Structure formats: C-alpha cells, structure tokens
C-alpha cells in the first residue's frame, strides 16, 4: 500500500508513519526542546520533524555527546525531562557517557535511538549496535519498539519512569521500519507498571522515630543531597533547619538546595569539603541525610564517617538506604513529603547552643583559603570574582576536576537548581554542552560555564551551537595548562611524576573561538579579571574567556583516599 506521507500530524484513525506517531507522542508529553543529531536509521523521524509544524524545537549538536550533556543541563535547571534523539550504531554509542552520567546523578532523560530495521537486527548490519544490551546497566529502563502500536504507550511510560521516583535516563530504541512504515493512528497509550510504584509518603512511624531522635540529639546535623532538589524541597529544608536551628551541610550535587550564605550553612562536605562541615559530620550525634547517597567522595573511610552518630536517611530509593552507611532510622520517601511530615511533628530540641557555637567557630577559624597571585591568576580568586560580579545568581556548569571543586567551594549558591556539575561519573567535557542545555532551558538567566582547559577540548565543537543560536553562554576556561586534578594527585601520591598530565600544546582559545564566530578573550593579569568579567557578563552573546591561572595550585582541604573525614590536609595555609 502506498500512501502519501501527510504534512500534518493527522487525526486519530488516519494513516500516518511511525515517525509521525512519535512526533505526536512528544507533543502529548509537552516536550519543548529536543537535543539531537540525524543519521540513517532516524531519517524517517527527521523527515517527520521537517514535515510537521512541531511546537518543540530541535537543537542540532555537533556530536551526540553534546546533545546528551545539553539535555542533562536542560533537565537539571528546569526540572523537566531532557529529550535526546540520535541515530543507530555510532550515534547511540556516542551517547553512552551522557546516559551513564545521568544515571549516576539521577537526571530525567528520555533518549530515542534509531536502530536498523527489524529484519536485519542481529546480522551485524551497517550501523547496528546492541543498544539494548549496551544501555541496560546504565538506564533506569530501556525499550526496543517491536510493534508500532506499542509506541504511544512506551513513550508515555518512558516519561513517567524517567521523571518519577528517583529520576533517571530511559532509552527507547526504534528500528527504522517502525518509524518508516505507515500505520493506523488509533493506538491507546494507557499503561500499567505494576512493578514500579515509588514510595512517596513517609511511614509515619519512621517520622516519629526521627522526631524522637532529634528531640534527644545534642549535636544534630542535616546533610542535604540532590534528592532535595529533585523533590523541590529547598523551601521546606530551610524552614526545618531554621525552625530548630539545625546546621546544614550539602553534598557536591546538593549545593544550592540550602543557601550557602545562611548562618546555618557549613558548606560542602566531603573530599574537598570545608573543615567545619567535615568535622561536624565526624562529631555529630545525629546525622539526618536527606536525599544524598553517601557517595565515597563524601564519606571517606567508612568507619570514620559519623562514628558517634545515629544515622537517619531519607531517600526515595530504598536501595540507597544502608548501601554504604549503616542506617538507624530509614525513611523511604520523597524529601519534600518527609520534611513536611517532620515540620508537622512534635520535636522538643535539647539545648544545642554549644554545638552551634563550636561549628560557627570552626567556620570562622578554618575558612577556605588560597594564595593570591597577580599573574598568573589565582584560580580560587577568579571564582570569587565570578561569584561577586554575577551577584551569586548565575547558573554555573562545570566539568570535573580542580575547577569544579573551586567552583563548588567559592561560588556560594543561594538558590536551588543553579549548579550543574557531573558528580557521580565525573565526566570531563560535560560542563560546556550542559551550559548549552541550561541556557536553552532558562534563556533569561546568566549561564557561566566554568571549565578546565583539558575538559573544554573534549566537547568544544558545540561552539557552533552557541554561535548558531546566539546563546549568551560565558565559557570561563580556568586554564592551568594541565589536567589539574590528575597533576595534583601525581604531586601528592606519585612523587611528582607528571605522567601525561601537562598540556603544553593547548590551542589559542581566542582564535579558536573566533574561528567559530564566537568572541574570545584572554586574561593573564589579575588586574584585568574584574573589568573583563563585568564586560563579558554584560555582553549579549557567547564568549570564550581564557583565564591563565597558576598551574601548581592544589585544591584544599583534602581528604586523601582511604582516610577518614576528620583527617583533612591543607586546612590552613
């Protein structure tokens, strides 16, 4: 049967292609942006995008990894699922880093991959890859569409699974025959997922236990993770902390969920956390973890983590409770619901004035520190100026490494969902494309992508995207001509054998940016930093700014691998 492909998504009961049906399901899911890259197996889908007047926009990256990190950045700052479209084989495998990154950091993504036609699957066909096999361990769930009639249901399920409970990436693999063939548009999208019912409301008995423990505690501490951001619980967290004067520390990914400048904030805890936060964990007698997963970069040596504390853990994912740290009071729930229940509970606090005084003194006596130099520039000072000049209100994205830790330490996030970083997977090349997605998701905000000279070179091809769309992303290269964190570890633990970590042949980033039609600036004197930042933040367009910083600077304080949370080095100068 030959049917002329329609130029509109047709009414129910009409004949349309599988690809048109897919477009319709995306419209139904209220998608506003798709990050993608075309290729053979998704040609029918791209044709449908071309033919249909879709209410969403397709953003063409310059590498599929750019698409997926952009989708992650978009998801992180908007709370909406990031949608990705890539072709079969290499298109799909280029997404793997981003899918794993999203899995580790619980970001809601729905990823469509093309697949070779069903009749050649399994024959090692051109651009065939076992996407189901490859993505099974790195997705919350994955599908291969074997019948076009399943497509509306699968897409609906995928958005549901990706965005509810503990968010995560869902892959939908679509064979070319499914998207290309003509089908009758009268399918139901009702779904039934009896095995998937996340627990949202806390068990009241566990809340009572937690309230009782808090009433008895003399040295209580709140640890807030990204779960509080996904649950939109920052307001309740602040109410709860302020109501009982509870000190708060956050994980790397939890930054911003509690105002960094609040007097109750101890800053970030963990490997490069503050002295005050880490010692509070070491000395507290009740640790209430809300939406963090006790990652090893937070805990250090397990036996020395909160050794004197009763541990309460609120998490929507029961499998995280008791996984790494023995937990006395487990609460399986959405962080917001749990906090509301706690706010409604009867809690009579002990006098914890002494505890609070001690923590405040630690904050004052052992602040984060750095050595200031004129040229090259001190990287931490640079971050402080970014913070000052952006009034602490920018969306900041980073890669992984020294610049990431300095950004986490010196940019005091007061608002939730302004911090986009690769935490669990620690992905170089994440920050810049994530900024592209963040800027598209929140067009009116200042987006500053703080990256290293190493990581930026992994995904800088996305400069074409910010140029094409005139996205006013400000790329700040913290350029120490090295893979700084690798270099630091080699200095500390490998007797200064700098094996392959010094980048002496970097490109001229200014010319590079200019070749993409993007403004480039280079700053190597401290005196030029503030005027340059002021000027480029005010500039209505993309900028790549190459800041030459001191190569030898290390991130401190630090808990060496295998050490306890109280065994920090570099606490003071």
């Amino acid at each position, binding site marked *: 049967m030959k049917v002329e492909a329609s130029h509109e998504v047709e009414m129910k009961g009409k004949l349309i292609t599988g690809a048109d049906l897919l477009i319709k399901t995306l419209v139904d899911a209220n998608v506003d942006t798709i990050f993608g890259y075309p290729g053979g197996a998704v040609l029918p889908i791209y044709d449908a995008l071309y033919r249909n007047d879709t209410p969403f926009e397709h953003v063409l990256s310059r590498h599929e990894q750019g698409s997926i990190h952009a989708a992650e950045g978009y998801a992180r700052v908007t709370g909406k699922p990031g949608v990705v479209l890539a072709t079969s084989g290499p298109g799909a495998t280029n997404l793997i880093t981003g899918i794993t990154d999203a899995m580790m950091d619980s970001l809601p993504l729905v990823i469509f991959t093309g697949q070779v036609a069903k009749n050649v699957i399994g024959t090692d066909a051109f651009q065939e890859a076992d996407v189901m096999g490859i993505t099974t361990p790195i997705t919350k769930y994955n599908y*291969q569409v074997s019948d076009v009639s399943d497509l509306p249901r699968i897409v609906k399920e995928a958005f549901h699974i990706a965005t509810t409970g503990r968010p995560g990436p869902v892959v939908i693999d679509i064979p070319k025959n499914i998207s290309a063939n003509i089908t009758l548009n009268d399918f139901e999208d009702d779904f039934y*997922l009896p*095995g998937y019912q996340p627990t949202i409301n806390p068990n009241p008995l566990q809340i009572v236990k937690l309230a009782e423990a808090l009433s008895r505690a003399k040295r209580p501490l709140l640890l807030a993770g990204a779960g509080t951001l996904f649950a939109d619980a920052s307001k309740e967290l602040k109410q709860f902390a302020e109501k009982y004067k509870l000190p708060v520390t956050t994980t790397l990914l939890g930054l911003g969920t509690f105002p960094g400048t609040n007097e109750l904030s101890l800053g970030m805890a963990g490997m490069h956390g503050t002295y005050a936060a880490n010692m509070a964990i070491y000395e507290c007698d009740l640790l209430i973890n809300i939406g963090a997963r006790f990652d090893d970069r937070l805990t250090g040596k397990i036996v020395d983590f909160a050794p004197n504390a009763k541990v309460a853990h609120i998490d929507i994912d029961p*499998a995280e409770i008791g996984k790494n740290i023995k937990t006395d009071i487990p609460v399986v729930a959405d962080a917001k619901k749990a906090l509301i229940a706690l706010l409604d509970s009867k809690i009579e606090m002990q006098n914890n004035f002494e505890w609070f005084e001690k923590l405040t003194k630690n904050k004052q006596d052992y602040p984060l520190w750095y050595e200031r130099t004129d040229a090259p520039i001190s990287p931490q000072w640079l971050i402080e100026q970014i913070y000052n000049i952006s009034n602490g209100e920018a969306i900041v994205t980073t890669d992984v490494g020294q610049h990431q830790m300095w950004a986490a330490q010196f940019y005091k996030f007061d608002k939730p969902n302004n911090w986009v970083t690769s935490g669990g997977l620690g992905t170089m090349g994440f920050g810049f494309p994530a900024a592209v997605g963040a800027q598209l998701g929140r067009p009116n905000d200042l987006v500053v992508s703080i990256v290293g000279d190493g990581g930026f070179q992994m995904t800088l091809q996305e400069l074409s995207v910010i140029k094409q769309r005139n996205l006013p992303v400000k790329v700040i290269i913290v350029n120490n001509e090295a893979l700084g964190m690798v270099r630091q570890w080699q200095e500390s633990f490998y007797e200064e054998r700098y094996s392959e970590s010094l980048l002496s042949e970097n490109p001229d980033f200014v010319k590079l940016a200019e070749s993409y039609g993007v403004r480039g600036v280079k700053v190597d004197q401290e005196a030029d930093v503030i005027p340059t930042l002021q000027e480029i933040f005010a500039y209505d367009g993309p900028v790549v700014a190459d800041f030459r910083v001191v190569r030898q600077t290390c991130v401190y304080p630090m808990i060496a691998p295998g050490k306890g949370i109280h065994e920090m080095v570099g606490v003071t100068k």
Partner: protein
Amino acid sequence: MKRIITATVQDRGGVLNRITGMLNRRQFNIESISVGASEVEGVSKMTFVVEVSDDQKLEQLTKQLNKQIDVLKVSDISDKAMVARELALIKVVSTGQTRAEIQGIITPFRASVIDVSKDSLIIQVTGRPDKVDALIALLRPYGIKELTKTGVTAFLRGQQPEQVTELNSLSI
C-alpha cells in the same frame, strides 16, 4: 550464608539480562538461577540461590531486585517452610554388568532411567538439592560422562508453621 530468593517479574524483553547484569555488576554471588512461567500469563517466576556474606549484603540484594521496574515481588524464603526442588540429568557409564547395581542405587532416590545405550545410562532425578547431590556422589565412582542441573526452583508451602526449624538452610 546461602539463601533462596524468589522473584516474580513482568515478562518483558530483556528482563533476565537486566537482572543478571545487575547482580553481576554489583558483585552478588549467584549459585543458580531458574526462570519459568508462573500461574499468571505474562508473569515469570525466578528463583535465585545466592551466597551472601552478611545481612547487609542480603538486604542490598533484595532491594536492588525490587528496584527493577519489571520486578513485581521479591521474597527471601530461606527461613520459611518451603519446597525447593531441582532436576538433574546424569549420563553415567554403564555396561551390562553395572546396570542392575545402578538401578539399585537410584531406586531409593526415586530417580529413573530415561535412556539406555550400549555403554551408558541417562538418569533423571528430581528433588531437594542435597538429595540430588547425594545421588550424584553415589554415581560418581561409575564414571559420570555428562551432567546437567536445572537450578533450584522453589516456593512457600501452603501452610506456614509458627516456628520453622533450621532444616531449610541445611537443605539448600
């Protein structure tokens, strides 16, 4: 400690791969897995025999299984009154002279000879794993040419006594 875990799962494509992959990645030590249809269409039953070091690891195992979208229910039935059975096929060397002798060995196990050839027998035995292992040990001196086991499949008995003896852990 050895535990028997059962799971009912939605019979969707890739579910076995997803579950075994997860168990492998998280370094759980699986002795056997058996999978088959259940009384409900579209729902399969899986039985795992696992070796776990402690209660925390066991709790993680059941939580990670439960977390899978297709998993409907996970039970650790090791401490309950249950039936656990497996089937083994054993091809044992046997000439005319030893045939009757082997028959004598397998009879108390209610095993049966399901194939006879000039120089071998195939014996089928069903039962608790310890019983199956006992029969295999007795047949070994005759020379086992081939052996295959299905892995344990298990579920709870119809009635649960108030106290369960430690018999189960011995029998699995």
